[in-house]
């Protein structure tokens, strides 16, 4: 195998055969090394959340990958091709421009006052919402659908103050029984305060570069349609053969769906809701 081996001859056979062998080994090993180096580079660039989201998105069911512009009626059916990074989507930018506004207009006008109105919230597809505050910080909370599903969690884990969060990364954990809802943060930033789950808020963030990226979040109008669709999906998951629909009107949510439907596959339902594959 090596020229140092006993009885090795530099003949054509050895040169061709071992040449090919070492080339193959070189290709395999260098590809492996390249992959590892790239992985290391991605880690250094803190791209693991992006990559994780990229991987997760490809595994989401089609019905969870609909374009937000289905919700405003622009399209009848369209699957998002940009992993919900609407800022990267030319179509969205064109549509947004045509609608005559950008995301910044959604910052609440009143100084100091918390933007309590749901109208002011932006929604993440992982069933969280974001509320901008006048001081440049943002409150993040879990939306009603997810809350009604989980009901009264046994345990809520929220990142502590000072934790740096990356958008799309699961950061909070709502545990009930043996089921976890791993809630992803809709925007990146550093936790400046920890909220109170009962009050609907999980934590308060300050974006690292001063301004949060909000273009991928749904506006309240879109969110309403989206929420109805999510509700329908949930209803479909919860409807067992021979049982009546529990959420007939779609408006009033029973406070504790997990309690009401203990036999459903809540592990999968919550993962679906939290956009976890």
């Amino acid at each position, binding site marked *: 195998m*090596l020229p*140092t*081996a*006993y009885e090795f001859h530099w003949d054509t056979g050895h040169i061709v055969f071992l040449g090919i062998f070492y080339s193959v080994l070189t290709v395999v090993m260098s590809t492996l090394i390249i992959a590892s180096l790239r992985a290391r580079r991605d880690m250094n660039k803190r791209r693991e959340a992006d990559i994780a989201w990229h991987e997760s998105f490809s595994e989401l069911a089609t019905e969870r990958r609909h374009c937000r512009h289905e919700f405003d009626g622009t399209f009848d059916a369209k699957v998002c091709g940009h992993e919900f990074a609407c800022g990267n989507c030319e179509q969205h930018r064109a549509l947004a421009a045509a609608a005559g506004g950008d995301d910044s207009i959604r910052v609440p006008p009143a100084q100091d006052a918390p933007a309590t109105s749901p109208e002011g919230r932006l929604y993440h597809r992982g069933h969280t919402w974001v509320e901008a505050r006048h001081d440049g910080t943002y409150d993040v909370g879990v939306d009603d659908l997810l809350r009604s599903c989980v009901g009264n969690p046994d345990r809520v884990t929220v990142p502590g103050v000072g934790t740096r969060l990356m958008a799309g990364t699961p950061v909070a954990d709502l545990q009930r029984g043996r089921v976890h809802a791993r809630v992803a943060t809709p925007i990146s930033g550093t936790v400046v305060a920890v909220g109170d789950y009962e009050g609907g808020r999980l934590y308060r963030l300050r974006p690292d570069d001063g301004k949060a990226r909000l273009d991928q979040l749904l506006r309240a109008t879109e969110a309403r349609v989206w929420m109805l669709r999510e509700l329908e999906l949930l209803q479909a998951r919860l409807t067992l053969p021979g049982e009546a629909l529990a959420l007939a009107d779609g408006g009033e949510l029973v406070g504790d769906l997990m309690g009401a439907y203990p036999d459903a596959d809540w592990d999968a339902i919550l993962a679906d809701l939290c956009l976890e594959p």
Partner: protein
Amino acid sequence: MTLDLTRRSLLKFMGGAAVGSMLSPLPWKLLDDAAIWTQNWSWIARPPRGPVSHKYTTCQLCPIGCGMRARLIGASFVSAWPVAGHPAAGMLCPLGLAAAQMRYHPSRVRGVARRDRTGADPAWRIVDADATIGELGQRLAACRSRGAADSVAIVDLRPGRSMSRLYREFLARQGGGLYVTAPDGWQASAAAFAGLATVAALAPAPDPARARTVLNFGAPLTAGWRGHAITPHAAGGPLLIQVDPAASITAARADRWLPARPGSEAPVALALAHVLVFEALASDARVNALADLPHQNGSTLRMALADFAPERVAEVSGLTPAQLRDTARELAAGRPALVLGVGDAGGGPLGAEEEAAIWNLNLLLGAVGPDGALGVRPADTALFDEPAAPAARSLSDIPDGSLDVLLVDGSFPGAPVSAEQLRRKLRGAGGLLVALSPYAGGAAGTPADVVLPTFAPGEWVDDVPAPALSARASYAWATAVAVPAPFALHPAEWLARLEAASGLVVPVEGGKAGHEAELKRRAGVLQARGSGQVFDPADGNTTDVAAMSDPDMLAGALARGAHWSDKATLTLADRDLRPLGTDGAMAAHWRSLAGGRVEAAHTAGSAGSLVLMAGGGLAPTAGAITAPVLNKLYRESGLQPGSRQLAISATTALAHGLKEGAPALLTTPHGRRRVRVRFDNSLPPDVARLAAGPDPSDMGDPAASPDDRTDIPDLCGAADRPVWRLVRADLQEAHDGNA
């Protein structure tokens, strides 16, 4: 600059070193060496080391006594090789080639071994030598004191040696014990010759080299391991006519093949004699006169032969009358002609009547005469003036159940006796069979109750007398080429210890010294005789004995492996000759043969669909101990059949519903044996053959059942009748019980 040795950098260094050293040949070479080293486990044998040297000796594993060059590494006797140009035979057979292994045969006993054959545990165990010798001595003394010396016997499987004299003298001092020999086919044939000549103490010395035509009855002359190889006429030798039931290699090589039925040797020989006598082909008057020489009762050979017209014999022999007549004429025309008996060496001896008919044929062909190929030579006993008392007896002369102590000489690993034959002679449960043998097996060890461990071949000096039917008198020593095993003793020493234990005074020149003295005496006899020549294997030169002035010179040469042989054979005068078998039982037997009961003569009173022939193996005889490496010929290559492989033609086997390799049960009037079918189309229909020769292993063949005959001779009734070469047998399918 600071040297900052962190754990990380240390790990880096180690990793780098590991990778770097992988690129050097060091780890690979280490692995390479390790792989080889791990294969050299302690249980892989290590050859001995030391300077290479050679010693010459004589093979003592069969009666031929071939010359042997022993290769020694240091003091280790590692292998044996033939000596080119040696007068006995310039070759070695597989037995001889493997002689070096005989010392380490797994069945070698490492002390006085004893077993209780009838007890629950018949395994051999090493016992106290002195106590055993004491017990045996008391038995001998008891026999002597009650005047029953004939309840003590020694079986000498190779008579004519120095040890033979010691055995006889021992028996004589015990008050007349029995000295027993067990002739094999060759010796039996030679013994049958005795009646032919009126002069005693002469042995037949057929010399094929002097013959133009050789008629051979069954012996594998061109195929055997024995030295009697004859080259057929086509290859420059005499015209060879083979009488053989099987299309054997010798039959195929021979110039003529007479496929006579098994057991028809005597009628065929008599028919040939008939043609010679009645067609007056025996050219000269003196031979004609022999045919009409009247016996005491007035009967003549011509009268005895009258019944054996070829037309009648054709029926029993399966040969055509024309074949028989042509053969007789060919023999008559091809003088000097020689007729050899013996038969298949792997089986038992031919019967006395066959041998007589065959010797008569020689007589009629003028073979015994100045121009013939059949000379005579002095018998070994006569040559060395061996004491005549006690007389040599045949085993069948000893009444069953008559012996208290039976000593069996086991220096010859194989013998034409069966275990049952020997044990039958013992007095009930009280008799003891004592083997003077290196092995707890073989002809002596297998039937024994006690084994007194003796030297193995190559560890002591034994003498090798001329083989039966050899053309010349000869003598050589099997010299000691190996270091004797510490646990073994010279057979003469055992004799001396027995003698002392039996309350006799051992002569001064007793034991080993007595044996040595006898060996020297024999060298002296030959030197004093002054005839013959000595072949020195070291240089291949031949020296006339007449040129040796001193008996010590001859003894010294013999000790170096030299071989003495007489120059010429003797011839008998016509007046000393008379034809055999014209009277009494023999003539009656012949007449019965003429009646067409060829096979019945050998298989009296039994029925069976097959004729079973014992033989076909190449070895000396049944029960022989052979070196482990002989397995190459038996188990590992299937060249030689084992004793559980029944050779039978495909047609006959299939007629019995048996396929190749099928397990079968063979039943004779004397016992049963589980065998495996082995197709051998060289055999005629309805004839099967079982090798009586050595069987180094059971070759994975069917397991012995309790009623299984382990000895082929026993299966053929050797314990009941002198001739056991043929027997009627039945064959049926057996079911593998041990699948």
